[in-house]
């Protein structure tokens, strides 16, 4: 019975992952471009983030981005339609990371994504929301999900 349940849960997780994989393939089938800018829009006036449109001086960057130091290049520009400020970052020396790197958390772009998201939260709300402490027990499906969750802050379509 327990096995049947685990199998059903695994099928569910697989269906979710399958649907996701279907969408994730870009239309042209081109691999993710490691040089592409990663961007978040922060709901704050442009002046507040960094002076003007010039590449922001690192010292004035929110901490999560400042921590990445010289590894990244950052740009700040106003968002259209009063949507705030676009905060963009890119690795100075982009390197293509494979699936294995991404699963292991060795893709440096994951760090950039997390830093951008954290910076946005800090600027908008003054803190970065922490997840609840888990109440879960280990199961095979759970382990896979646990890994996906650990990477979820650095993955996604940002």
């Amino acid at each position, binding site marked *: 019975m327990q096995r049947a*349940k685990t199998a059903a*849960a695994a099928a*569910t997780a697989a*269906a979710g992952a399958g649907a996701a994989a279907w969408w994730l393939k870009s239309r042209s089938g081109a691999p993710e471009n490691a040089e592409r800018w990663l961007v978040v829009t922060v709901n704050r006036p442009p002046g507040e983030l960094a002076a003007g449109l010039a590449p922001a001086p690192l010292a004035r960057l929110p901490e999560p981005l400042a921590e990445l130091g010289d590894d990244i290049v950052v740009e700040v520009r106003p968002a259209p339609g009063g949507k705030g400020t676009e905060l963009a970052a890119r690795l100075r020396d982009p390197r293509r990371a494979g699936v294995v790197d991404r699963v292991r958390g060795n893709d440096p772009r994951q760090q950039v994504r997390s830093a951008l*998201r954290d910076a946005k939260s800090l600027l908008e709300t003054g803190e970065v929301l922490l*997840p609840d402490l888990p109440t879960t*027990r280990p199961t095979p499906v759970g382990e896979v*999900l646990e890994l*996906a969750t650990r990477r979820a802050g650095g993955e996604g379509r940002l």
Partner: protein
Amino acid sequence: MKALCWQGVNDLSVEEVPDPGIRNRQDAVVKVLASTTCGSDLHLLGGYIPAMRAGDVIGHEFLGEIVEVGPDVSRHKVGDRVVVCSFIGCGRCWYCENDLWSLCDNSNTNPGIAQAMWGYETGGVFGYSHAMGGFRGAHAEYVRVPYADQGAFPVPEGVDDASAVFASDAAPTGWMGADLGGVKPGDTVAVWGCGAVGQMAARAAMLLGAERVVAIDRLPERLDMTRRRIGCETLDYTATDVGAELRELTGGRGPDVCIEAVGMEAHDTGPQHWYDKAKQMTRLQTERPAAVREAIHACRKGGSVFVLGVYAGLADKFPLGAMMNKGLTLRGAQMHGHRYIPMLLDRIAKGELSTGHLATHTMPLDEAPKGYDLFKNKKDGCVRAVFRPAG
């Protein structure tokens, strides 16, 4: 503390888990006075929502007493009796500022999972999978409430727990369907589903000035409750041809606004049900969208269809042609509760919106697995089971 944990498909148990505490400066901890089952939980129980882990605490519709506040909480103090919105919103991102709270940019701590599934993630929600933040649920003695200034609302004096608890999720969801579905004075509105959400949508449509509201289900006790407690007309879809009936009721035009409050496990009559069920079981589709199909078909030309029922992924036999050729507006959303909760609590206090009748079964948290059995299998006339963790 004690909490109701999801252990696997159709497997719930009450377990001892560590107490929650303040994790962020804007958090509060709430001692739960009442929490209730929601149709959305049935999708978790059935295993249709991915990203659940054994041991996850479920439940998202609740009310309680504040027992601890973080240093940056300014609108609440220890001892306040509050309803907490099921979705978590920061109040300061562009989405929250535009009253689209369930789309909050800052409250989902696992954005990558839902971004992969849907392109962008929703905000966080209590007890509703790791794709939606992995927050602990409300069927517990205590819950940590992030962004407490935004998400907790004082309950007016004189409103009892069993009425106020539905202002957390069911009532604002129903209201949103009627409001964002564009219900106007004089409209005819059809609502699929006479669960708590459908009943609330029907009542909202009436309060927004609809001239005629028709709610559709098959369970006699729910149809009866909807007629008596909500005060609208009802149709039993197993006893009549819903499309024909709606045409006759609306002078041949069809309803102006159709609100779907059924979700991905819709029941259906005839072969279509087995087709959907087989495809859902084999994961070729994640939904059984029978009610959405019917709503799109029945809606008048140029009308509006609002999907409140929860869906996870891909639907089959979706009537795209009817939607396009009839010029329909199709919309859906997870609930933007913060936008409506104070107004709804006010209406509950004034007696304009009846919610207490939804709590057909009340029991201690220890009996929650039984509560879910009653609710899931619609036994003993159960519309909602309400748990009282504080005894």
